[in-house]
């Protein structure tokens, strides 16, 4: 059946074509107008400029840990003892809740063995934000509760992380993130 707007061979008429073109142009215009209104909420250039940081770690004694700010978030840098390294390396993968390395320096499918969580075994560097709802886990400053696995403990909802920052018990789904970092020298690490 043909209507007055269709030609004999079913092709759109000149009038329909104009309607379609006008509609598409209006939609494209609406999209182009909307996008700046959404994108203005994304991080701006001044925020992105703060995306890397160099830290001198020479003053951190064995067994100590510090917090530094990186991208508005705390990063934990722990100088691990020999026993802590042995404990982390001796943990079976089957004991881990999250089997993924969560290491931005490695491929996404790397597993969570200790070697995939750090560059240098002496230094454990993780983003100090609980993967549950973003609280800062305790255990960096001396005297704080380090949880049942001798690493970090999040007081908000009770997540326990081990000495390699891996989630062992509690509601957090993932291991603590390992940020992208490299050692520029023996004592200076560049995060980001």
């Amino acid at each position: 059946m043909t209507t007055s707007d269709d030609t004999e061979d079913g092709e759109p008429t000149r009038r329909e074509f104009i309607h379609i073109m006008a509609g598409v142009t209006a939609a494209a215009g609406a999209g182009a107008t909307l996008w700046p209104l959404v994108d203005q909420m994304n991080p701006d250039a001044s925020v992105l400029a703060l995306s890397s940081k160099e830290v001198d770690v020479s003053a951190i004694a064995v067994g100590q840990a510090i917090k530094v700010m990186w991208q508005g978030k705390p990063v934990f840098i722990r100088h691990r003892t020999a026993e802590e390294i042995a404990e982390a390396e001796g943990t079976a993968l089957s004991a881990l809740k999250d089997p993924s390395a969560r290491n931005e320096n490695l491929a996404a499918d790397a597993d969570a063995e200790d070697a995939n969580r750090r560059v240098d075994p002496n230094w454990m560097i993780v983003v100090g934000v609980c993967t549950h709802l973003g609280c800062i886990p305790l255990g960096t400053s001396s005297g704080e509760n380090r949880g049942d696995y001798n690493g970090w403990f999040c007081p908000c909802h009770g997540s326990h992380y081990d000495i390699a920052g891996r989630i062992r018990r509690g509601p957090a789904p993932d291991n603590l993130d390992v940020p992208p970092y490299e050692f520029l020298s023996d004592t200076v690490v560049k995060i980001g």
Partner: protein
Amino acid sequence: MSHPSTYNPNSGLEKWLDARLPILRLAHDSFVDFPTPKNLNYWWTFGGILTVCLVIQIITGIVLAMHYTPHTSMAFDSVEHIMRDVNYGWLMRYVHANGGSMFFLAVYIHMFRGLYYGSYKEPREVLWMLGVVIFILMMATAFMGYVLPWGQMSYWAATVITNLFSAIPLIGDDIRTLFWGGFSVDNPTLNRFFSLHYLLPFAIFGVVMLHIWALHVPGNNNPTGVEVKDVKKDTVPFHPYYTVKDGFGIAVFLVLFAAFVFFNPDGLGHPDNYIKANPLSTPASIVPEWYFMPFYAILRAITFDLGPISSKLGGVIAMFSSLLILFVLPWLDRSKVRSMRYRPAARLWFVIFVVACIALGVLGGLPAEGRNVLYAQIATAYYFGFFLIILPLLGIMETPKPLPRSIADAVLNKHKPEAASGGAQPAPAE
């Protein structure tokens, strides 16, 4: 309810205006001569109380915005400046802060009243749904307002709540970044929350207008749940009968309001919010404002994975579902009888529902450990079970008590022994 206009413009000016913009006619027909069921009890005064709450929040909020600075380095100090230096600043801030709590107290009573008397049922489904929209907008507004003083609880509440959105698969992290405007809660976040906190109350005001419009088409429900049958016998004009009754309810409510403002202004707040926000240190326990605690308890009750859904995503889904389920309530409750006065079984389950909601509120403020988790899971299961299982089944299985023939009948027989509207003697069916 819809009714023929009874407005008579008296002066020449009123006649002139009525022919051009009949706004006085609208006001007269809506709030003076509006036919209102004659048996409304004090639970019905909370609509008026809520209007007063909204006006108080907007007025005090506009004043506070004249003295507040939305910047991470100055926000906390500017709030202290309001408290100590600005003339009557302490009063404006305490009224605004406690006004939020009073607003939620009133809205919860208003919602439970609607649940008990079946005010969400046909033909008032849209009225109810608009109410749920207002409730959700109120929650968003209150949350963003709580962030503005930039204390420890402000900062960490913002962190925890924005992190909820990262649980959404695929796009969650991008949405969270859009809220933050950076890599964590920071100055851009504070700025946009201030902007939206100023905007949303006016959006609420607009939806309130729709809510009143949707109310004035079918008219008020009433404690019997029986529709108005004879306007002359069943109703009285809104003014003076309900302007006075609402006025009394508002006055009593304001006494409670003033008691908090003047005698315990920080009683509903958290002392940690008088410590300036510190992104490097999380308070030992993060507790939301009391009016969010039931939903916080539901969030934390999901501690187990469900197939591919992690416990984190599961908690977020449960929390949002607990709100969204209210939208479909009119179609879940199949009973034709509105008021639970005449639904003996539903009334019992309703009382347990109120207890479950209060229990969730208490549990939301306690540490999520040991027994508390189990209790929160039981209460959460009941919350959803009430809507999804109990109400649909009761619609089929329950035998309601006989309804009064009309509102006038119910009122006139109230004080007689063995009233026709209830008691042991079954009254003639409709």
